[in-house]
């Protein structure tokens, strides 16, 4: 198949061999699980359990709230011991509302409803089962999958693209799941295609995963699922980039893939979809890559959602040497964390313990305008110019240069010989602009409130004055009447 050109991009050291050749192993059942209510983009889920409740594995413990949200299920059987705050898998390290579940060690499933002929389900039924299973994009974006299915079906999607790029260094969780569970993935892909009535199905896999490609090709057989080998490059696995490479089309700025008739899902999500639709199993676990130069035994594990990361590190035999930095996700876009009590969530693709030499940190020096960042940017931005504007607090100038089109892939920061934290500048600016927008909205709202109050006070004042005037008039009328009566009486 003809592939299309991609702009920019970088070729970081893959380091995938650390963990790629090891079978997925299941993590032993942890004692305590910390299940955050927000593991997806959108509104946090609402708990439907109380402290002390006994729950079974797969039982609904928090339900979706609002249009964009996803439900959450008990990862194992046990007792709810707390509904409170726990440290979040987020760079802020802030606590978030979390359900704490103490496992009873039995790991007993709730009764689940299997479907023998999943393809006889109507598309909306498939989407409903995906929604009920709490499936979100497992590539890292964690957008509720069912929502994407419904949006795509309604807008008439032609092409379904399955993302098996896994362009982030170190990560091999998608590689392993494609090697070991190809049949399930392919059925999940066909179910997704069925749910959105897609006419074309392309599975893009980077050429650095030959075993995964072979396994997927075997599983796909002669079906409509087409496996496409893509060159290895970062950020090939980004939604915008994989669409461009496979179809030559670009998502219009500010738009969605559905705008050009495309739907993109991750391969691991397809497996979760198959598990949910065929076996009625909700999303309560995922494959996590444990890797990095500081970890003793790099590997891939299937971990329950809510498992403290420390348990995973222990499972990998701890550190071979002190880790300079712990990262959730891949090194290019992952988040550093310091508290190993953070739980694995639906979007956790990897846990990395990196050595200083792998990070390659250096103090920033002046920009020499070498424009390596311009050549690396897959979006066609001018990172050096944007950062210069942001540094001097000219955020509007950065926006005019396309700040909002930045996908924060980090390619520019990665290649900058001056070690300028370019993408940090951009994320700071995006955050600051959003905060300004919020405060502007709030100000507009409070201004309305203030005006309403002033008007009300004025009205009350006016009414009071009117009432007083009326009373006065009445009193005067009365007095006049009395006077007149008196006068009459005198006359009489």
């Amino acid at each position, binding site marked *: 198949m003809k592939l299309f050109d991609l702009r920019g991009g970088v070729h970081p050291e893959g380091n995938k061999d650390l963990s790629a050749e090891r079978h997925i192993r299941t993590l032993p059942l942890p004692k305590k699980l910390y299940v955050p209510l927000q593991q997806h983009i959108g509104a946090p889920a609402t708990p439907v359990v109380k402290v002390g409740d006994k729950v079974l594995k797969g039982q609904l413990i928090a339900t979706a709230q609002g249009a964009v949200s996803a439900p959450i299920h008990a990862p194992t059987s046990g007792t709810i011991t707390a509904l409170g705050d726990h440290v979040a898998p987020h*760079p802020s390290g802030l606590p978030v509302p979390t359900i704490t579940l103490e496992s009873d060690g039995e790991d007993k499933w709730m009764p689940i409803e299997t479907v023998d002929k999943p393809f006889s389900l109507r598309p909306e039924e498939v989407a409903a089962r995906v929604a009920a299973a709490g499936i979100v994009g497992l590539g890292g974006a964690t957008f509720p999958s069912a929502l994407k299915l419904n949006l795509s079906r309604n807008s008439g999607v032609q092409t379904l693209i399955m993302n098996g790029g896994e362009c982030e260094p170190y990560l091999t969780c998608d590689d392993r799941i494609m090697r070991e569970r190809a049949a399930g993935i392919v059925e999940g892909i066909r179910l997704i295609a069925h749910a959105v009535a897609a006419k074309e199905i392309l599975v893009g896999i980077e050429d650095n995963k030959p075993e995964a490609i072979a396994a997927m090709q075997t599983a796909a057989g002669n079906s409509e699922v087409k496996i496409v080998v893509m060159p290895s490059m970062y950020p090939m696995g980004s939604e915008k980039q994989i669409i461009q490479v496979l179809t030559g089309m670009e998502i219009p700025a500010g738009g969605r893939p559905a705008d050009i008739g495309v739907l993109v899902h991750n391969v691991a999500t397809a497996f979760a979809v198959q598990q949910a639709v065929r076996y009625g199993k909700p999303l309560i676990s995922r494959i996590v890559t444990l890797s990095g130069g500081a970890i003793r035994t790099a590997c891939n594990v299937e971990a329950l959602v809510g498992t403290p990361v420390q348990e995973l590190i222990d499972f990998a035999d701890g550190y071979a040497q002190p880790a300079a930095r712990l990262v959730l996700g891949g090194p290019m876009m992952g988040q550093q964390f310091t508290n190993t009590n953070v739980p694995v969530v639906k979007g956790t693709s990897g846990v990395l313990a990196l050595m200083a030499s792998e990070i390659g940190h250096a103090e920033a020096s002046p920009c020499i305008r070498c424009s390596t960042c311009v050549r690396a940017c897959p979006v066609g931005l001018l990172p050096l110019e944007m950062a210069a504007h942001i540094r001097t607090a000219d955020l509007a100038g950065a926006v005019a240069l396309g700040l909002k089109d930045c996908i924060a892939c980090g390619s520019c920061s990665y290649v900058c010989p001056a070690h*300028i*934290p370019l993408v940090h500048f951009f994320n700071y600016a995006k955050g600051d602009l959003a905060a*300004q927008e919020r405060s502007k909205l709030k100000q507009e*709202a409070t201004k309305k409130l*203030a005006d309403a109050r002033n008007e009300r006070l004025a009205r009350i004042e006016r009414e009071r004055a009117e009432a007083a005037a009326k009373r006065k008039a009445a009193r005067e009328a009365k007095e006049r009447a009395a006077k007149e009566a008196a006068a009459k009486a005198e006359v009489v």
Partner: protein
Amino acid sequence: MLFAAIISLTLLGAVLGLLLGVAARYLKVEGNPLVAEIEQLLPGSQCGQCGFPGCTGAAQALAEGSAPVTLCPPGGVALAQALAAKLGVEADLSGVADKGPMIAEIKEEICIGCTRCFKVCPTDAIMGAAQQIHVVFREACTACGKCEEVCPTESVKLQPVPVTLQSWYWSKPRAEAA
């Protein structure tokens, strides 16, 4: 020769100066539409924290350039920037950014339900009835501080807005280079 040059230049200067004076006198711009525009931007809660008698006074001072664009604490950085853009000046945000957004909070233990704060709140952000504990609507509070002034038990206090996962964002990189 030199004398002639001095005289001619002096004359030229005098004539031009006169012209400017006449122009300033007869072509004067009456009133200032800017004041109304600025007032539109201000919160309109007439809280008086800027030191002017209400938002109109502040708008006048801003239009005259006798007040800094950072004068309005409830408006915060966003307003300062909007004002700077409107007035075409550079905003020195060092003073505003430090404090961060604030919000009124009521300590329920010592609230006696006197309704004083409720009455002075310019945006109806405090709810409550007599003898009952009052509550602050975060979305409506502009942190004007009027409630803090009238509270007899010091139960209302302005607090920094707590950072949540929704409002947190990366701080500016310290790197001097870029």
